[in-house]
């Protein structure tokens, strides 16, 4: 199967004064198209840094990181921005919705950089909200929605641009168990329906166990149980 991501010898260092901290160390990884991979590990062992690298939010210090054949380590800022706008959907632990915008406007924000015309934007936003069961909450502000509903809006925002990859960083970390199951169920459904490649970082074994493959980050290296 074709790989969406190909990582070879990827390192990420952070420089704090005279100290250098290696957050991701010499990582090789292939993620096939349409796979759901979960990453777990202790805090500070590089899970989020790896996710940032996969999401074109940061560049590796060394190594090669290919997304659909493009080496993200060599792309300029504008090109990375374009990759994020078209190919990658993000879901965050704290939802990260813009508090002044309604649910529909938050979803629409993901289409703004793509230059989609307004009528088309409205159609796609309505469809995205419908797909997460929030068609009737389109005009609500984030503060008027429950945590689960806010995360649904965030999922709709991530999917409205029809990305190749969905990256989720502790997407259920701020939710109770019932809502967690509901959100994970929704993500699984959308993953299956849309043939997405899903990379999910979580501490929660109930979430992780639903993935096809589970990697463990330790001291900046990822390893998989065979």
């Amino acid at each position: 199967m074709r790989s969406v991501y190909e990582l070879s010898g990827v390192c990420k260092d952070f420089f704090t004064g005279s100290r250098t901290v290696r957050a991701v160390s010499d990582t090789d990884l292939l993620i096939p198209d349409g796979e759901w991979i979960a990453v777990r590990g202790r805090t500070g062992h590089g899970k989020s840094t790896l996710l940032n690298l996969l999401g074109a939010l940061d560049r590796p210090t060394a190594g090669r990181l290919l997304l659909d054949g493009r080496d993200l380590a060599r792309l300029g800022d504008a090109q990375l921005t374009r990759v994020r706008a078209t190919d990658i959907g993000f879901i965050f632990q704290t939802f990260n919705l813009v508090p002044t915008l309604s649910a529909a406007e938050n979803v629409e924000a993901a289409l703004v950089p793509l230059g989609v015309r307004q009528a088309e934007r409205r159609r796609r936003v309505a469809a995205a909200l419908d797909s997460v069961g929030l068609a009737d909450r389109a005009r609500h502000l984030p503060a008027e929605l429950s945590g689960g509903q806010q995360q649904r809006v965030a999922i709709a925002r991530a999917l409205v641009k029809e990305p190749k990859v969905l990256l989720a960083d502790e997407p259920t970390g701020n939710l109770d168990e019932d809502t967690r199951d509901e959100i994970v169920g929704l993500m699984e459904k959308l993953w299956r329906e849309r043939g997405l490649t899903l990379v999910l970082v979580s501490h929660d074994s109930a979430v992780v166990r639903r993935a096809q493959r589970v990697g463990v980050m330790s001291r900046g290296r990822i390893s998989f149980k065979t």
Partner: protein
Amino acid sequence: MFFFTYLARELRRRMRQAIFIALGLAVGVGLVITVTAASAGVRNAQAGVLKGLYGVGTDITVTKPPPAFNPASGGGPGPAGSGTRVTLGPGGAEVCTNNKCTHGAQSLDTLSGDASSPLSAATVGSIGRLHGVAAAAGGLSLTDRQLTIPANLGQPGSSLPQPVSFTVQGTDIATAARLGPLSDATLASGREFTAADADKDVAVVDKNYAIATNLTVGKTITVAKTKFTIIGLVAQPQGSTPPDVYIPLARAQALGTSTGNALTGQVNTIYVTAASASDIPAVQQEIARLLPTVTVTTPSSLASQITGSLSSTAKLAGDLGTWLSILVLIAAFAVAVLLTMAAVSRRVREFGTLKALGWRGRRIVAQVMGESMAMGLLGAAAGVGLGFAGAAIINAIAPDLTAILTQPTGEHIVTPAGSSNPTVSHAVAVPLSASVSAAAIAAAVLLAIAGGLLAGAFGSWRISRLRPADALSKVG
């Protein structure tokens, strides 16, 4: 569309801060407009005073200082002016004019211009031909002094006679409408001078002087023992110090004297109009080069001679007002910048998320700049309102200002303690009318927008340096 939706929502969310920033800018802008309006009012008041002195079309006046007083050359400090001496003795009063002495009751009436020396009328043509001069006209600024001396003056029981004087302007009728003191006057009754009046004994009288002395059109006024028929009354703008009586220049030259000498073919003030305002300094220099002994006065040099509350207010508006405006604007800009930067700091997660969604840095910068500019525009709108209110308050409560112009009389007084050249001060009440100009409004609006943009620029600088991974990692 999304841009404006997002902008409006953000302003609504931070309404208190937006209002605070807008108000800060508004106070600065309002102060700038008010100070500018007050300064314009003071400038207009000064221009009114100067215009009243020399007429609406005059840019430059040329006069020649009176000669230094020489006691040996004669001429005493008599009440009737230079060349005439009144001596009280046991036999009554003795009046000597140009060494001709008479005794007993008599009426003195002299028309003289001793405040400045005469210039040849040909000088007017020379100045008129200078580069940058649009027009030049000569005039005679004179004073008519009348004194009735009773036969028993100096005897027991007699009282000192009260001299009567009024100012007389010898007017070049050909140019009177556009140059010189009569150019700014409006006809109140009767008629203006015509070319046919050039050699006639006709006079135009200032309306205020006419009211004070009960003169009307058709009556006569005596100037240098000659009866002039009043053909018209004119009104000069408020705040001016116009001559009392205008007579044809040729008649003034025929009747007037200066330090006892006739003024035939002479003028003592030349009124000059420059081709443009920018030509005034060059024309001033050319005249000074052509006539090294004359005094060349421009509106700016004359303005510096004005004292009184008008001068104080001009200084206040110019110095304190300007600095206060600058300080308030700096404070408003600083507050706007600090609050915008604080707001950007609070929105780091939001901007990081937008970058993760694929928003370009410059789109986010534009969003922040747009919000700042909207606050600037709000501040400008409120500031313009405050500026108008400030100008209205000034107009409502400001008392009339007083312009004091001090000029030499041309007389010399000799006492045992020494000699002196007395001066006369004209105090003119000038209403202060602060007016807001379109240019001031435009400048103030630009200032407010600049303030908003400056605040936005500092916030944007912060955003442009924001790496998405760092922004999101700060969320925790």
